[in-house]
């Protein structure tokens, strides 16, 4: 019996893997498709979605998988962006140096923030992560050397070996590779020993302590993984808009990322992706209809809260499986 269960599991994961590959291929085919349709502008827009998907995915790992509601993710996202811009200003334009440096800076920041914040829990954790993000925001905004309120512009996108990232399609593919790589990595981590420990901590923290697990250290590691990936997303977004803007660090950015996670599905591997896609598409579509699209977006989000409490992905899934069952 156990054996057949096991093979069912394998078949399931094989199907999942096949689906993921198909999705990846479709996404990779998007730029030539859009260009053929004469919609070149949307290649850049699609890249933006992928970058926010990466940022939201990294937050979802902390919130959904680590069980820590962090309200300061913009700090790591923005720090990654500033790292790339500051390095570029000093003449370091290689993506192979600047992007890992951005991720490392964000990782170090999240290590410091997490180490202090994890002493608190619940609402206090939400607020202390917010406080740290505010500190980092004001630090960057107040320093004239880093552009103050205007942010720090980039002259050009990072150099990426033979690939010219100035080409929107090339940039899109690199962003896609980053997102796919991150998803693959997080999926592996989630199913390894470390992931099982995190899952168990979310389920019963005190029992884990009583089994000898230094719970805080595991949560911190999770927090740092999320922060590091957010730094990479930040490096990409600075390249995308050719600007490290203080807006990236603002608390409303943390709020937006959190909203993406909740909308997409807390704790679901593709939740961040689904959320970023939903939110940015909605913005784009609504803005086409009315200047007061914020109002429409707000009302729609309220509908999500009350009608799709487990996220859009889960809601659609439920909708379809109910149809199918009929």
């Amino acid at each position, binding site marked *: 019996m156990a054996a057949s269960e096991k093979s069912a599991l394998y078949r399931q994961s094989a199907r999942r893997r096949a689906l993921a590959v198909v999705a990846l291929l479709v996404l990779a085919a998007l730029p030539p498709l859009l260009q053929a349709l004469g919609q070149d502008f949307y290649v850049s827009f699609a890249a933006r979605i992928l970058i926010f998907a990466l940022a939201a995915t990294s937050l979802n790992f902390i*919130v959904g998988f680590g069980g820590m*509601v962090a*309200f300061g993710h913009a700090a790591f996202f923005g720090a990654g962006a500033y790292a790339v811009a500051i390095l570029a200003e000093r003449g370091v334009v290689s993506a192979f140096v600047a992007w890992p440096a951005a991720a490392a800076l964000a990782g170090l920041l999240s290590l410091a923030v997490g180490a*202090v914040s994890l*002493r*608190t*829990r*619940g*609402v*206090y954790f*939400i*607020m*202390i992560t*917010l*406080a*740290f993000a*505010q*500190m980092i925001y*004001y*630090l960057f*905004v*107040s*320093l*004239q*050397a880093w552009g103050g309120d205007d942010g720090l512009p980039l002259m050009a996108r990072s150099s990426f070996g033979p690939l010219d990232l100035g080409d929107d399609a090339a940039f899109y593919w690199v962003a896609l590779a980053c997102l796919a790589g991150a998803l693959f990595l997080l999926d592996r981590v989630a199913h390894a020993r470390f992931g099982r420990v995190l899952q168990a901590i979310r389920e019963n923290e005190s029992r884990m302590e009583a089994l000898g697990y230094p719970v805080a250290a595991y949560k911190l590691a999770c927090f740092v993984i999320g922060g590091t990936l957010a730094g990479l997303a930040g490096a990409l977004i600075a390249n995308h808009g050719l600007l490290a803007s203080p807006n990236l660090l603002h*608390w*409303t950015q943390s*709020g937006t990322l*959190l*909203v993406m*996670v*909740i*909308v997409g599905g*807390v704790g679901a591997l593709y939740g961040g992706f689904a959320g970023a896609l939903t939110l940015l598409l909605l913005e784009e579509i609504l803005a086409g209809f009315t200047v*007061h699209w*914020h*109002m429409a*977006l*707000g*009302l*729609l*989000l*309220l509908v*999500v*809260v*009350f009608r799709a*409490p487990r996220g859009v992905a889960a809601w659609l899934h439920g909708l379809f499986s109910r149809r199918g069952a009929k």
Partner: protein
Amino acid sequence: MTQLILEQAMNGLQFGLMLFLLAAGLTLVFGIMDMINLAHGSLYMVGAYLAAAAAAASGSFVVGALAAVAGTALVGALLEVAVLRRLYARDHLAQVLATFALILVANEAVRMLWGDQPMQLNAPEALAGPVEIGGFAYPAYRLLIIAVGAVVALALYVVVTKTRVGMWVRAGASNREMTEALGVNVKRLFTLVFAFGAGLCALAGAMLGPLLAVQVGMGESILILAFVVIVIGGIGSIRGALVGSLLVGVVDTLGRALLPWLLREFLPAEVASNLGPALAAILIYLLMAAILFWKPAGLFPARG
């Protein structure tokens, strides 16, 4: 020099008292219902706009302020009954999403009603000038803010700590089931508390209107300060909110005034002028992080 410090301390006190008006409602809502309300700052914005509109229509600042308090309390009550009430039983994430959505809606509604441009709200003519106190001149209007803030803070403190209604509220904050078992209609009580908190927001919005710009987005920046206050004080504690407000008001104001000057004593002028404002801006967040580091549930934890 002492005069500067004294004046800035007064400004800090004034700002702190206004923060308390915002924080009081927020901490009660947070404490009783374990509810994160990001839209609290929107009520402050709505209050300021209502005050500006009513003052412009009536030509009287006082009428404007009173209309704002009444109108915003009503808005708050409606909001509680229509939306927020459904969120109490939900987790913090759902509350964040819903109230974040409410911010979007509120900002856009204000923009649709009053346009993109900031609104003018003038202090009463009679209070436009400075007055002499203890040998130095201080703006009369700011003195009024301090007076109003102090009276309201005192009244609120007495109501919450000494009266029966206050006892219910505090009891509700530490143990909801128990309070319900005592026969208190927590649902209605809470709508009232929420409307009351909204009214206080409007009062702060109206009083600060002449000093700060009345514009879309004004709620978001002050919301974070109000959260800092209640987290420092301990969520659900009125006393904590009062201490936290004054602490944040004074530290922030004094820090901005004195830090750049202090740094110049120790550091080269160029570094100091760069670092000063940055350090001053993050001072209260440092304060909050430090307090939470040593007291993870704030200065006056309401529970356990």
